[in-house]
């Protein structure tokens, strides 16, 4: 199998935003080169992408795709490393890894499949579900307020923050390419409809708009939409900053000293 496609049966629901992410990922990987890319995923509907794209991959545990990606990039900085994750995956279970990868500016791209519920476990609320969201674990409506993904990334010091919508494949392709090209930690939140449990297609279409350029004040733009029905939803790149990457700062000197020499210093 030297082709990017796999023969695996695709089990995503018709109309799922994951199809668009899969399509642009394949296109992007073809450009970079299959053997120069490695991808990771956690557990959830998003993660099935691993079985649909024929490329170096580590299908990890729930919440841990970012950790795996950080390890892969540290071990082999030549690889382009993408971590696919969901809102339940990286904003609930694995949020600490997301925050710290951003903080250390690890040169990876994190793709958040933002469907705003735990879909594979048949509809519970996540950190991104709006207040009042009726689910199997919140039958009377979610009592918690949603977390702003981009604000989390921004306060952690992410050097590239972006948002796109799976319903606009051209914008998604363009934004994803920018995220991967960025040297340093990059986050792309992909708003997507979950046709089975939370159909948001028309809401995003009606309430989102594309930013022309990177805003001067990303903080304000990031807070424009509150994930809870208030404000218009900006799409595009919110922040782009040049900083040395974690891997550059951690580069080894490559000088070998023998164990015998280390022991000599212990006399």
């Amino acid at each position: 199998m030297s082709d990017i496609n796999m023969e695996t049966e695709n089990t995503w629901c018709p109309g799922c935003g994951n199809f668009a992410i899969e399509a642009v990922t394949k296109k992007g990987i073809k450009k970079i080169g299959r053997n120069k890319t490695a991808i990771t995923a956690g557990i959830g509907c998003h993660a099935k992408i691993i079985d649909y794209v024929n490329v170096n991959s580590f299908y990890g545990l729930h919440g841990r795709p970012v950790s795996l990606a950080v390890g892969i990039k540290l071990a082999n900085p030549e690889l382009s490393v993408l971590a696919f994750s969901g809102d339940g995956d990286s904003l609930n279970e694995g949020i600490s890894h997301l925050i710290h990868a951003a903080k250390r500016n690890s040169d990876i791209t994190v793709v958040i499949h933002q469907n705003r519920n735990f879909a594979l476990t048949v509809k519970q609320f996540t950190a991104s579900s709006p207040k009042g969201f009726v689910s199997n674990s919140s039958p009377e409506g979610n009592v918690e307020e949603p977390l702003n993904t981009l604000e989390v990334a921004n306060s952690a010091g992410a050097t590239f923050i972006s948002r796109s919508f799976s319903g606009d494949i051209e914008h998604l392709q363009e934004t994803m390419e920018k995220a991967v090209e960025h040297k340093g930690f990059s986050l792309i939140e992909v708003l997507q409809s979950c046709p089975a449990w939370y159909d948001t297609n028309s809401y995003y279409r009606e309430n989102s708009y594309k930013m022309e350029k990177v805003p001067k004040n990303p903080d304000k733009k990031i807070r424009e939409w509150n994930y809870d029905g208030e404000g218009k939803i900006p799409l595009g790149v919110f922040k782009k900053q040049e900083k040395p990457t974690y891997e550059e700062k951690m580069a080894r000197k490559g000088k070998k000293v023998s164990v015998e020499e280390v022991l000599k210093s212990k006399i």
Partner: protein
Amino acid sequence: MEDFQILIGGAAGQGSKSAGRLIARVLNRYGYKIYVYEDYPSLIRGGHNFSLIRVSKDNKRSIKRQVDFLLALNKDTLERHRDKLSGRGCIIYNADEVDEAEGIGAPIETIATEVGKKIMQNTALCAYFCKAVGISEGVMKEVVETLPAPDKNLKVAEKAYQKAEKENDLEDIGDPVPLVTGNEALSLGALEAGLENYFAYPMTPSTSILHFLAGLETECDVQVMQPENEVGVINTALGAAYAGRRSMVGTSGGGFALMAEGVSLAGISETPIVIIESQRAGPASGVPTYNAQSDLNFALNAGHGDFLRFVFTPGDAEEAFYLTNLAMNLSWKYQVPAIVLIDKDISESTFSFDQSVLEKGEYWEESRGECGKHYDRYEDNEFGISPLCYPGKEATVRNNSYEHNEYGTTTEDPDEVVKMQDKRMKKKPLMEEEIERLEMVKVFGEGKKALVTWGSSKMAAKEAGKKAGWKVIQIMSFAPFPEKRFKNALEGVEELVVVEENRLGQAAEIIKRYTEVDRKVLKYDGRPFYEEEILNELN
């Protein structure tokens, strides 16, 4: 003097540990063999810290209740340990804090403040000891010169040495050897096996591995990372191992609990990894700076699902070197997680290191695939060991936490699920044979009565066994369990006592699968066995 013990103590922050190191290094130059046990509570200032330094010609590595030299940086130390004196040595105490007492009053604070800094009172106390025990001023100064702020420390040492009285003569009996802690030794063992990346979150008593390897980063070809938590530690390490780096993580029981999901992930994804689990007294926060050997069951069972692992249990610094080296080589050979289960009294204790063990330090090249266009990461073959390829070359490398087919694609097909579990289990007899080939059961002495022990308890058990005329059997691998070698060691044994530091007798329960156990000698107050304690149980 062929065998004596020094206790040096003070409040945290008074530098009793570094004074202990200084004394150990000076005596090392006279050719004496050293074992240092560190006793300290979990705090930064105050409390009571002490080091017990066992000094012997024949490398005794246990501690005794009786102390020959008591060096007291404060009054508290004097009061706590005065009753342990053997009468063969002497007391040297801080005369600036204690008015009058039996022994040698040393105005160490006055001396330190006059010619150096108050903090250097520990150097002054060492100098008093050096003179009293018969160490030459020249040898003492050679070691003091290597301390931070050497000029002032030298002045303090010289002045204290002048004032002190010589009480003994000390014979120069040989050449110095490296003094290393168990944690340093295991790090070196890993480096010999090609360690490239170390990942850890600080946790006593494993923390000094992180410090030691981070200190070597500029010298050695090793990268040290401190991720956000232990879950991050093991998952990041597995990412690095997947990408081709020999990776190791280190923690204690509490951190290992957080890593358990990663152990299971290493199991199904067949990603090699070395895990250092340095035990301390649990459960939970337990008694964090004191010892226990109570994570044996946990190390053997951590991680959900069926999978294979290695669990090794070193009993001193040389074994820590050898078994960590072996763990790394075997983990990459069989693509299973390898756990080195060590404990605080090896990790943080200092040993005169027998360098002949370096000959056992090896680097085994793992089985590598051709890594051409088509590559099955989980190729099912005769031995169940699929040749490794790493991403970045022509081959597509697909690791998976789900059950998967040979190519690494997720499967729920019943035949495929059975096939892949059987594939991984093909390694079991090979791993068992491998362990039986190696000396994983050590036997000291002979006789119809035997002590069975493991980990740091071996040190006191060995000395006690020698004195009582008992055979001592030490187990160094619990997974796989070296059944044949263990049964050979038991030949002719009529009475069997298991010695370990935990409440349940965890090793004893395992040993009962292979033989009858007559008695258990258990200690679980966080402190190491004294030789006498075991001896009393045998007579």
